[in-house]
């Protein structure tokens, strides 16, 4: 009987483990740096978590043969870039172009309030394709 209870416990642990494995936890900066890879027009990791007021150095690696962007901000910022007519602008903290096959670094200080921000690429069709991620602040 004890063995059967042990077996059931093992099954429960395995089930919980498998469920946990299927859900990735939000990535956090290590020593102030967060690495993001762009592959097949997707950000990896796509879910990030930071502390309010934290300054993060993003290192973005584009492994695709096409250009991308990393635009970090709230929905309004995303809308401006999605509907904007400005083809290119100089890099700003949290807003950079990531040319094909290159690594780009940008540093961003998050607001001191709890909330969430979005990062995405607004080259034609990319945002609709699903090229976006979220940052939980707090």
């Amino acid at each position, binding site marked *: 009987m004890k*063995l*059967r209870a042990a*077996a*059931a416990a*093992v*099954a429960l642990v*395995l*089930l919980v483990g*498998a*469920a946990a*494995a*299927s859900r990735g936890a939000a990535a956090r900066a290590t020593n102030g740096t967060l690495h993001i890879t762009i*592959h*097949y*027009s997707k950000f990896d990791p796509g879910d990030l978590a930071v502390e309010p007021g934290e300054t993060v150095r993003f290192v973005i690696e584009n*492994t*695709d*043969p*096409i*250009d991308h962007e990393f635009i970090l901000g709230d929905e309004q910022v995303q809308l401006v870039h999605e509907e904007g007519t400005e083809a290119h602008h100089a890099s700003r903290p949290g807003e950079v172009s990531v040319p*094909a*096959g290159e690594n780009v670094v940008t540093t961003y200080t998050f607001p001191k309030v709890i909330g969430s921000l979005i990062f995405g*690429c607004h*080259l*034609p*069709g*990319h945002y*609709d*394709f699903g*090229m976006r991620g979220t940052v939980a602040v707090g």
Partner: protein
Amino acid sequence: MRKRLARAAALAILTPILVTAAAGSALACGGLVTPNGTVSLLKTTTLAAYHEGIEHYVTSFEFAGEGQEVGSIIPLPGVPTDVIKGGDWTLQRLIIETQQRQLERAALFANADAATAGAEVIMTKKIEALDITVLKGGALEVGNWAREHGYFLPPDAPEVLAFYAERSPIFLAARFNAERAENRGVQTGQGTPVHIVIPTPSPWVPLRILALGRKASEIVQADVYLLTDRRPETLPQAERSNGFDPNQRGLIQEVSEPASSSLLTDLRSDRGMKWLPESDMWLTYIRINETAANLKHDLAIDASGYGRPSPVAAGYPAGAAPWPVVWTVLAALAAVAILMAVTDPGLRRQVARVFRR
């Protein structure tokens, strides 16, 4: 022959062409890449004929107008030995052979329906105003080459190029040269047929690339004609036709029959089509009418008579599929069940009895 067919075409083919034009211009059976990411490709027509180990791939590239940097990329199953100007009426003649029935049926029911870096250039060709480049390389190399040569690649291009490069690192890029098109008086909408000769043991027709740059819900339409020595088996298997039903989704087999001698005679009389036998060929017409989201594979063809089209050629994984979480859970449950069975004294006695017998 040319005059006879031209006369026939003037009447018989006019309607299908107008129908096609109304639906959107026919371009090549490839992924279309444009500067602003919009894709104007609505319907394509392709012949993939397979005879004596050689795939003859005939498609038509349509001029989209000056100033529009529009090109096409077609993945190929092998290195072509030649790329030549395609015949003048091969594709149109196939339409007459098969789709005339569609028109007849439509008429019958009309009242009821009132309602680079790294990519190796292995061949370049100029065919009229078209610049053709055959490339060899991985997805990254071919993608870089395309970008550096002014092709705009939509966001799904990296994954789609990788999907093809894993099976065959050969791609054909085609683009109209605006200056030559102007000098030759090529009009917007005018097609240039291209005939690609590809020795390959395992023929396939690229279909997934037709969805390149499309939204998941967009409908991809294409007409694929197969001419083979025997009745072919395809993977994915085409569905049975509901009788040219425009609402039927999927890969629909509209025609599967021995090619008529008149068809073979007409095709053989076209440019570059002498390789086609005079008789004993099988004609298959597959109509593609599927959402971009569902068009995830290519059309593998087995005309050997063994009926085993290659899953790899169709783009299914060669090895084991990734071990998904659901299988992990099931495996864990199975392991626990075995563990419980082994540790249950009653069950253990029963098993022992069975083995003693």
